[in-house]
């Protein structure tokens, strides 16, 4: 008797390296449920991760995987999709990997409407290296590089991707795995740049140091209590939204992808 997703783990190599109660484990699990429910052929998929805890997820998937350089996931993905457009590419990344060092590639991949699915694990800090400031760390919180509290404003990466041109954008948390699985399924089947932000618990680093909660269950409760849906958020005054996580599907539209543009251009070249 085993967990139904065990068969999708590369070499069944478990236990994985994620900490007790880590959101990355949940994201891996939800991704596998989504792949299973969609009955996708994993041999026609490529998982790309950069550097960081969530970027280690591709190493556990039983498919072609690139464990690449910090922040360059979407650059790899651009090369892979242009070389072999029939492959389904899923990018596993983190808030620092995607929003800081990889920020440039993020906005350009969104602008190009590259047909990939990006699952960004937002755990509030650079956990793998010990808990440094990340672009999504809320103001005022402790990180190892902001020992007196963060003085910067954080990003809303979903809004950034929307402005850059992403065509499927959603935010969920690891306290809502059923909704997350639905969103990942929608992202994987969406034709175009799908971006799913997953606000995820990190009991070992962010929870312990920034929030002062080290228990995994309390961390996930924190996420649950502080989540408001998009519809609820619209009715609340802005003061009440401070510190809240707005979840839901923000954007879903169909626009020509980069591949469509290439095919259009190549048809013209053939005719000439």
């Amino acid at each position, binding site marked *: 008797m085993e967990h139904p997703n065990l068969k999708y783990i590369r070499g069944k190599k478990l236990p994985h390296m994620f900490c007790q109660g880590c959101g990355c484990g949940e994201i891996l699990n939800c991704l596998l449920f989504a792949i299973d429910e969609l009955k996708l052929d994993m041999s026609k998929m490529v998982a790309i991760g950069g550097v960081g805890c969530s970027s280690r997820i591709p190493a556990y998937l039983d498919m072609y995987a690139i*464990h690449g350089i910090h922040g360059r996931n979407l*650059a790899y993905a651009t090369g*892979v999709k242009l*070389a072999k457009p029939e492959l389904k590419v899923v990018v596993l990344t983190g808030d620092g990997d995607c929003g800081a060092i990889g920020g440039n590639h993020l906005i350009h991949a969104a602008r190009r409407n590259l047909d990939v699915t990006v699952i960004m694990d937002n755990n509030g800090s650079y956990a793998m290296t010990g808990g440094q400031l990340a672009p999504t760390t809320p103001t005022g919180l402790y990180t190892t590089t902001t020992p007196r509290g963060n003085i910067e404003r954080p990003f809303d990466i979903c809004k950034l991707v929307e402005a850059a041109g992403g065509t499927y954008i959603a935010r969920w948390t690891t306290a809502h795995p059923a909704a997350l699985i639905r969103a990942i399924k929608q992202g994987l089947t969406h034709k175009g740049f799908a971006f799913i932000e997953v606000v995820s618990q990190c009991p070992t680093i962010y929870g312990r140091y920034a929030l002062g909660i080290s228990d995994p269950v309390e961390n996930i409760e924190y996420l649950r209590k502080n989540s408001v849906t998009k519809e609820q958020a619209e009715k609340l005054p802005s003061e009440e939204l401070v510190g809240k996580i707005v979840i839901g599907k923000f954007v879903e539209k169909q626009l020509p992808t980069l591949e469509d543009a290439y095919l259009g251009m190549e048809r013209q070249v053939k005719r000439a």
Partner: protein
Amino acid sequence: MLGNHAIVEGAIAAGCKFFAGYPITPANEISEGMAQRMPEVGGRFIQMEDELGSIFAVCGASLAGKKAMTATASAGYNYMQEGIEYAVAAEIPIVIVDVMRQRGENFPTQSDVMQARYGAAGDHEMIVLTPSSVQELFDLTVQAFNFAEQFRNPVIVLSEATISLMREGIRIPRQEELKIVNRKKPIDPPGEFMPFRGEEDLVPRMSEFGDEYKVLYTHNPHDEWGRIAWTPKLYEDLYNRITQKIANKADEIALYESLFTDDAEILLIAYGSEARGCLDAVTAARALGIKAGLLKLKNIWPIPAKAMVEAAHHSKKVLVPEMNTGRYYHVVKEVIGAGSEIISLPKNQGRIHSPDEILQEIKRAN
């Protein structure tokens, strides 16, 4: 044909089907040429948002099975080191054209001879080719792809602003005349195929995205199955194999031309555009009765030691003219050793040594 366009045609002749680049003078014509030509030959071109995007897109495309190339200049090449290091560690065949030029300006230079080899981590081998004419830009680009596929390593074509932007007549061989090397495909079935097990030539067979092998590519230390592993001995073995696969074949890789080296008492060792002036100078010196010779290097890394030692066999003095502060001179000195006196001729003024200048130096050394 323009030098940069010869690079484009060389890449296409070798089977390049993907190019990613970022604008930088003097490599723009390569990007522009590729933008024009790639759709015509069933390939894909993309202008990425920066050089880092370019080098990693090229890595991704190569892993997906296509021969891939990028082109940049010295400053952009600085950026790409991460990607080159990744390609060395994960053994991805790619070609990078570095059109050397001065910092900030478009002056000719040969500044990158060390960066080309040591710019990435440096703790490995690199194959760096140094063309000196437009014809060689074509030929050596084809050769670069062949080396990349043969050794599963990045290969650098070290062009220069001078050569890339000059026009010369070239002969493009018919496709049947060209020797094209492709990466070795796996023969074992999935479950038995070890993606990082070196064969006799220490180079593993390579699968591509979309087939049934499901390999994990990483630059972390990994075992022969591709699994990330932390045992110390494993790391050392892996890197020894990655280094030796090229180091062992340094003499096979060596590409050079020698002129009058059999009995040369004064030998010139030059590469790239410098070799052009040396050719005239040596011919003129011989006419004056001076026993001068030229070893024109078409690849500077891995060091063509055997060729250098043989050429310097009779030489009392070895002159190394370069358009930098005298970098390859140190390599020559180390290789040839105490047998001859090695003299560095650096010139960092954005111009190559003229044949007269070199002739003066030859006379002085005589």
